[in-house]
């Protein structure tokens, strides 16, 4: 089901209206679970099965974790959860599902169109297990967990809603206030504006980057190469954050307040702050469930840097298990590591650090540097495995 299709609009409208019927809370949850399942089914008949298996396994592992099961038991239970994480991104599934041609694409939708959302509900299930271990209890019973984990507005592109956050508003399912309705409609409008209007413009300007593999002459000059790259980055942001707006707005119309997923990422003065504004729910997931466990509680100065390289490379591979995306992640890890080394030095002169942070000129320069660093990272994704193409694009950018 395409997010901007009439079919999707009808489905969302019908679900919102049905949830408003004067029914008991449990009945509304049952209806939502049915809607979530139907939503998954429209993408692939097997998708609800994968979801069900993942969720049941996740819930069982969480119950064991809450009772203090050993790491070995948890690893055995949790390992199969990782399978759906990469399943939608395997080549044969990708080629079977990806939309061809030069139509305006959907950076989120086409890449994971078979078992769409598997990586999102898997990440939520994994977080559920690890949180249960941390708190010594599970946030939901099985039925509530299934409703939470399959919540259809977040299936395609997140946010990766945390169970404790979802639990805060789930009691208002189907009972939105006027404030919820007002905010929901505004966010949906903003999402449509980003995806359908601004995203379409950026998509066209990104042609030198998008079609470079098949027609390198489109980026013959350095300026076209830069315009194409900037436009592609902008398109990625508009498409992705636009989808998040649609998800947040739709959920709000049902009375559910989801966590924000973007916070002006291109106005951040460092790569560390960029990641606190870009796909926030994923970057916090990576920080809390990959980076910090990799750091342990060691006083080693080098270990956090190695953890940054490792966790960001895994982040890249989560986007797409390919050489290009692995290097994209590694590049970000190197950036975070270098930024941290600089921050540690500067922190020793804390008064100077504060003065620099308060300087408008320094801030503007830092924002421009960060934006360009992020833009350059996307060059690694121009080809999944052919580093020659990547090298060619870098050469075009710098007129080499």
């Amino acid at each position, binding site marked *: 089901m395409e997010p901007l299709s009439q079919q999707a609009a009808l489905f969302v409208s019908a679900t919102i209206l049905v949830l408003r019927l004067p029914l008991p809370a449990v009945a509304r949850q049952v209806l939502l679970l049915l809607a979530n399942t139907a939503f998954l089914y429209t993408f692939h008949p097997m998708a609800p099965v994968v979801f069900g298996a993942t969720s049941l396994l996740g819930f069982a592992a969480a119950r064991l974790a809450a009772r203090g099961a050993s790491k070995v038991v948890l690893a055995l239970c949790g390992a199969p959860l990782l399978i759906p994480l990469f399943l939608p991104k395997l080549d044969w599934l990708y080629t079977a599902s990806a939309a061809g041609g030069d139509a305006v694409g959907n950076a989120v939708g086409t890449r994971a169109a078979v078992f769409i959302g598997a990586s999102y509900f898997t990440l939520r299930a994994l977080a559920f297990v690890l949180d249960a271990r941390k708190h010594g209890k599970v946030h939901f019973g099985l039925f509530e967990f299934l409703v939470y984990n399959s919540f259809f507005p977040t299936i395609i592109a997140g946010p990766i809603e945390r169970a404790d956050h979802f639990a805060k508003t789930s009691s208002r399912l189907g009972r939105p206030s006027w404030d919820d309705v007002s905010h929901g409609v505004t966010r949906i409008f903003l999402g449509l504006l980003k995806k359908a209007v601004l995203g379409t413009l950026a998509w066209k300007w990104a042609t030198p980057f998008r079609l470079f593999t098949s027609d390198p002459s489109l980026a013959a000059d350095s300026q076209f190469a830069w315009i194409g790259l900037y436009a592609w980055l902008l398109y990625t942001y508009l498409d992705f954050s636009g989808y998040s707006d649609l998800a947040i707005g739709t959920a709000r119309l049902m009375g559910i307040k989801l966590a924000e997923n973007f916070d002006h990422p291109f106005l951040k003065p460092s790569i560390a702050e960029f990641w606190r504004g870009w796909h926030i729910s994923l970057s916090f997931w990576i920080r809390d469930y990959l980076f*910090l*466990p990799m750091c342990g509680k*060691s006083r080693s100065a080098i270990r956090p840097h190695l953890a940054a390289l490792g966790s960001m490379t895994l982040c890249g591979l989560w986007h797409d298990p390919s050489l290009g995306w692995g290097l994209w992640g590694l590049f970000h890890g190197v950036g975070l590591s270098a930024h941290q080394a600089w*921050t540690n030095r500067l922190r*020793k002169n804390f008064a100077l650090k*504060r003065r620099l942070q308060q300087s408008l000129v320094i801030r503007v320069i830092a924002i421009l540097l960060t934006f360009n660093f992020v833009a350059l990272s996307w060059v690694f994704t121009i080809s999944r495995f052919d580093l020659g193409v990547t090298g060619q694009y870098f050469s075009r950018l710098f007129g080499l």
Partner: protein
Amino acid sequence: MSDSLDREPILAYLAEKIGGSRDLLPPHDESLVDAGVLDSFGLADLVAAMESAYGVKVPDPDISMQTFESIDKIAAYLATALASPSNDA
């Protein structure tokens, strides 16, 4: 500051991280992250230092930015950990 924990080791550690001046540390209830004193790269070191200074054991699942976000939160966590029977050794 409801706990009776001696905060001196916490303040000494954080002050050392910013060049020695305690005057530049944020108020105890404010975020160390927002103040630029602490970040996720420094969390592991902070936890290891606190374990050593207070003789407590911080379980891995407790290591999170939220738990150690401010001086008050660090002190509250350590006070609870010290009072826990599992730390009687």
